[in-house]
């Protein structure tokens, strides 16, 4: 059960090697979390992540999970929920893709869309139903600031996150009053392994800062969290810029 401050005792991470997810797990283990399920494609990295969290004192299980295989989600995730209540699901899987390659290779672009959107829709619905059955829990979904407005530089990734973001907002409304809390997290540029090759954007942040914002959002039962918080105001302005102006911006 979550406590008065929204801190979960059990955590299911979808995308168990995500740096943001692991920073969040570390933070929550330091608070109340005792059981962590890391779902992801079996890999040495997943085992390493599990081992690291175990070192922090949590009971950690790994679950084979593939976002690109939605047909398997119900069974895989069903097994996790059958083991006991999950207080928080962190939907953290996703792929950045490579805009230039993806534009040339539609199949690659489709994989980005299928991972970030289709896979998340399937996993999100499975988790939502399970959380609704247990009558409590938080579903925290990592969206992106890129979901807010299409940019020339990353619109394939951005459009997949836009779909995920809209889906999550709707799901939150559908689950209102069922005891389940749904939270969209929209980080800006986060410094991780996957973004290391990219030029850094303004208001860049770190996985630890995202984890802190998630903890605060849990306590406040927020529906939307921006990281850093200033992005909320910045994006409100950017969202309303005319296309012609936005196109010329160096963002």
């Amino acid at each position, binding site marked *: *059960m979550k406590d*008065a401050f929204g801190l979960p005792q059990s955590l299911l991470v979808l995308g168990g090697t995500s740096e943001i997810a692991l920073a969040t797990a570390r933070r929550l283990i330091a608070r109340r979390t005792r059981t962590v399920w890391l779902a992801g494609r079996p890999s040495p990295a997943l085992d390493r992540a599990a081992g690291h969290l175990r070192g922090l004192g949590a009971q950690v299980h790994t679950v084979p999970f593939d976002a690109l295989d939605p047909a398997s989600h119900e069974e895989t995730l069903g097994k996790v929920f059958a083991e006991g209540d999950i207080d928080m699901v962190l939907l953290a899987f996703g792929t950045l893709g490579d805009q230039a390659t993806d534009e040339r290779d539609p199949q690659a672009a489709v994989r980005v869309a299928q991972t970030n959107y289709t896979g998340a829709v399937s996993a999100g619905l499975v988790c939502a139903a399970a959380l609704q059955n247990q*009558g*409590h829990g938080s579903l925290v979904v990592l969206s992106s600031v890129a979901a807010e407005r299409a940019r020339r530089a990353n619109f394939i990734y951005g459009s997949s996150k836009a779909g995920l973001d809209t889906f999550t907002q709707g799901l939150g409304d559908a689950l209102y009053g069922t005891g*389940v809390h749904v939270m969209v997290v929209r980080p800006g540029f986060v410094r991780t392994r996957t973004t290391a090759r990219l030029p850094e954007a303004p208001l860049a942040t770190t996985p630890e800062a995202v984890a802190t914002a998630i903890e605060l959002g849990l306590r406040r039962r927020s529906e939307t969290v921006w990281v850093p918080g200033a992005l909320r105001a910045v994006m409100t302005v950017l969202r309303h810029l005319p296309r012609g102006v936005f196109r010329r911006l160096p963002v």
Partner: protein
Amino acid sequence: MLAETVSVQGWGRTAPTAARLIRPRTYEEAATAVRSCGPRGGIARGLGRAYGDAAQNAGGAVLDMTGLNRIHAIDASGGTVLCDAGVSLHRLMEVLLPLGWFVPVTPGTRQVTVGGAIGADIHGRNHPVAGAFSRHVLSFELLTADGTVRTVAPGTPLFDATTGGMGLTGIVLTATLRLQPVETALMRVATERAADLDDLMARLTATDHHYRYSVAWIDLLARGAATGRAVLTRGDHAPLDALPGRARRAPLALRTSRLPAAPAFLPEGLIGRTTVGLFNELWYRRASRTRSIRLQHLTAFFHPLDGVPHWNRVYGRGGFVRYQFVVGEGREETLRRIVRRLSDRRCPSFLAVLKRFGPADPGWLSFPAPGWTLAVDIPASLPGLGPFLDELDEEVAAAGGRVCLAKDARLRPDLLAAMYPRLDDFRALRAELDPRGVFMSDLARRLDL
């Protein structure tokens, strides 16, 4: 019997969860509900005054017992009453006061049910002399997991597991209580100031035994030499001859005053350091510098907050946490340290109350133990409050103390066994009496009770 899925939360409004709310109107309906409450179990709920998640059951059933609210028999000469568990203490006082009887233990509100009072084994300002609520329970009927009703008497394991057992052994259907005789509905109240915590503790130690009821309100925002400055309010039931002529005409009427309810949506920052600092200053200065004695109606003495319905809303959407612990005699240093830490942290608390506890009652999870108890309300949105209270827990546990489960919404589960040494007995009895885990609450899930 209607069952609808609703969001259920405690008085502190911190962790709402969804459950099927069932309101039985007869004992048979209650038994049917228990037999058919499904894999996630059920829990009884009274008037929802538990601060945390004790009367919530996510995904399962919550049995609203306030529909079973009949007073069956009153022995007006012997001073006992037999009533349903859903009867509120308010209703009991309404009926019993005119007959010259009073509820022997009352908490800071009349809006709790008899069932809840047994489940939480509540205490009042007269704990040193009267003990907890269970001391005045002659017997009760308990609906257990198999759907049968057992009569439970003091001195049995089931009695000791149920008093303070947070509703996890079964559902109390009726109870027989021993009452306390009173001549009037008025209290003779002595009020005095204490300049700091040491002064307060000295006064409580030296003169508390002169009064039946005793409580001290502490200004936690006072700092420096004034840390722990307080207002002591102590009193006893006023005898008839202490009343002025006019009041003697209806000496036993229960008088309640009601202000408008707190609005449903209040901003979160209302209870901040400025507002609370101002309130605390006024409240402290309002009390007379030297000891003063006056007559006060018992509702004003015992239940001042009942005058404002939904007062818990003043904390806004974020809700609040009530932190209450007890440490034994001789552990005054721990108490001093915790008060100092709360003051240093500038916790905006307008309700911080220090009382003394007398001998404990046998309930396995009953909270009161001989010593000092401090209860503090703190807005849940105060930054860093969670880890801070965890540190206080450590101090309390190290001093052999415990926190109160009826208020709890955040205790770290691994500290529970140190605080409640009979926890294993409780778990064993539950495993035997309720192997399928029919009785279940969010509190039980969170703390693995």
